[in-house]
């Protein structure tokens, strides 16, 4: 989660929101959250799990 926050603080073009899946079950279901962390980019579920910073950035920008 922290990596997404860091990207947002470093770029005015990026927003980052953590969403507590248990408190927002309807949205979690829409985003097919079966494992956490689940990463959603521009409203599209992309991947699950933590990855190193270079890989995180590569995946985000490739989305």
């Amino acid at each position, binding site marked *: 989660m922290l990596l997404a926050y860091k990207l947002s603080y470093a770029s005015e073009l*990026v927003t980052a929101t953590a969403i507590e899946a248990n408190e927002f079950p309807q949205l979690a279901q829409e985003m097919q959250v079966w494992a956490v962390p689940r990463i959603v980019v521009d409203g599209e579920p992309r991947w699950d799990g933590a990855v190193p910073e270079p890989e995180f950035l590569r995946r985000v920008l490739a989305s």
Partner: protein
Amino acid sequence: MALLRAEEETKVREWFAELEHPVELLVAIGPEETPLAGAGDVDFGAEIVRVCEGLAELGERLTCRVEDEPDGFPRFPAVSIRPDGRDAGVRYDGLPWGYELASLVGAIVEAGRAESSLRPDSLATLAELDRNLALDVFVTPT
């Protein structure tokens, strides 16, 4: 119940003492979605206020403000972590408890830094970004 264990509180105070910018926690409370079964009788709105006000007591440059249904918050409760009181697009929707309290603390520390803690090559790559990006990360407290 204390927010942090004594040794954790000492460490967090040290981190918050090093904030180079003031950081504001804007807590948004309002109508809440019905959580999954098992959440018990937790008053999420009251609890997030307790968490954020409790953190603000640990650092002179950290403040907490509570608003009822402010603009820009699609879900409640939530907290926006704002360097110099500015909306930088960083938010936690829900109650940051358990392991996720560390994410909130980490966001505060990053918001208070003069320079990003991202790697230089990441910053260089990010500087080439030419479109808006919305990152949502679904988490659970355990």
